[in-house]
């Protein structure tokens, strides 16, 4: 058991673990509703779109969490506004804003001297550089997200399942949508330092997808997604420590590996186990 305890003697590792667990959990919780509503592409767009906000905050010496959050919210409003134009579909609006915001972020970053080092940190994450004050902000964000999800998940589910019905019973569908966008922006900035802008999408989408294969209810899927998100973050960090590989990539690889294991072997919905079960079920009736 020494190998399990050993890395914890280092402050940077303890901080990294807390940061990764918070990020993994927050992304997986919000991600459940992103996946249920088929908004993966928006998740990808928002995670890239935080970059200009991060870059500006970095240059001004302000909090990159707040800078990224503002950029995320502005972009999600922008996607809503552009896609309301009758001749453009939403995915087109997303594609344009994704690339545009990302280019703007790179352009701003390239104006400063330590360009490539800082940019690499934002793009791929640097969980070992997370400070104690970063962790405090991340914990506050995580609490906000948890409270909001507990409060709103029922309404989101109704809306995702049947949008017209949600409007018909008078749920505030517009505000509910933007609340989800705001929470997604919060989740993204929480995970930014752990896995980096380019890999956040995997933190948002993979744990819920894995959880989906084990769940017949949205609530089960949500808490299971939280579990897979946190679990992948922990295992990934250990792998990163012992194999000396980038922490963000390690976490995402573990998460994706878990997904494929579930895809093949989940009790009823895995493709291998599902087939076995169907043949078992069939055989007694045919003999």
């Amino acid at each position, binding site marked *: 058991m020494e190998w399990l305890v050993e890395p914890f003697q280092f402050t940077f590792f303890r901080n990294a673990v807390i940061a990764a667990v918070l990020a993994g959990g927050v992304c997986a919780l919000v991600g459940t509703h992103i996946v249920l509503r088929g908004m993966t592409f928006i998740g990808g767009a928002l995670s890239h779109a935080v970059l200009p906000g991060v870059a500006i905050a970095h240059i001004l010496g302000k909090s990159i969490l707040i800078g990224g959050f503002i950029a995320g919210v502005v972009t999600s409003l922008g996607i809503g506004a552009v896609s309301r134009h009758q001749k453009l579909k939403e995915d087109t609006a997303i594609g344009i804003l994704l690339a545009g915001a990302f280019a703007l972020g790179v352009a701003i970053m390239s104006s400063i001297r330590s360009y490539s080092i800082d940019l690499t940190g934002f793009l791929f994450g640097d969980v070992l550089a997370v400070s104690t004050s970063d962790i405090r902000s991340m914990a506050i964000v995580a609490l906000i997200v948890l409270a909001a999800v507990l409060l709103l998940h029922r309404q989101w589910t109704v809306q995702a*399942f*049947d949008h017209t*019905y949600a409007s018909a019973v008078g749920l505030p569908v517009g505000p509910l949508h933007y609340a989800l966008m705001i929470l997604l922006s919060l989740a993204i900035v929480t995970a930014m330092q752990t896995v980096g802008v380019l890999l956040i999408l995997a933190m948002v989408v993979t744990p819920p997808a894995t959880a989906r294969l084990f769940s*017949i209810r949205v609530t089960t899927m949500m808490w299971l997604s939280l579990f897979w998100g946190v679990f992948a973050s922990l295992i990934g960090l250990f792998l990163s420590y012992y194999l000396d590989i980038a922490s963000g990539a390690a976490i995402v690889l573990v998460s994706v590996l878990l997904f494929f294991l579930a895809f093949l072997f989940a009790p009823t919905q895995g493709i291998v186990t599902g087939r076995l079960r169907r043949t078992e079920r069939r055989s007694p009736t045919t003999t």
Partner: protein
Amino acid sequence: MPGHSAAQNASAAIQLEHVSVTYAGRRPALEDVSLMLPSGSHVAVIGPNGAGKSTLFNALLGLVPLAGGRIRLFGLSPQRARARIAYIPQRDQVDWQFPLTALDIALMGRVTHIGWRLKPRAADYAAAQSALERVDMWKMRATPIAELSGGQQQRLIIARALAQEAPLFLLDEPFNEVDASTQELLLDLFDELATAGRTLLVATHDLALARRRFPALLFLNRSVKGFGSPDEVFTPETLEKTYTKQVVKWDEGDALSSIVDAHTFSHNH
């Protein structure tokens, strides 16, 4: 109607006065529709595709702006009356692969009752249970919705509406591709609801069924082409006015409805 004051009609479940709806750049979807339905009305809404049945429902739900006229539901504007409307969409409008159980769907009918509470109350579970029992789905409450048959899924979205405990039901094609036993169960349920004073508007393509099992028929094709009991309005004239380009052949008695049925059937599938 002139002379009718708002106070006189406050008890009307549905009141439309010269209602018109126009979608941008197209000809009107509804034109000068006037209608007064007291509580307990049980009406089949009949008309070809694109006749404005969905638009009528959307207008009653306050989801489309009116180009003219006025709608009052129990004396209220549609937006303010939402808590009193149980809307049942077409079954294929929702994603049945969603990770939800039958009980989850019935509980959705309580979403506005639950509001900001973290969990449904006992009253919400009781309403969901009673709704599922009424459509004979309580024993299936723990079943994932993806594993249910079309008829069972249809019963579920009706249970969701029942759980709302609303006085007005808007049902969009509830008999589409359901099994015979579900159809009978729903028809009996609708009769019971109407007898208990609930108001039901049921959009359907099934003319023979509407004629046989509904006390009132509303023929709609952009405007009202006929409204009354089957004996009064189920006539060649009304049908031809409603299905202008579609009913070509025409015979006596039941042959009439079968011809129209055959035509609307091939039109829809």
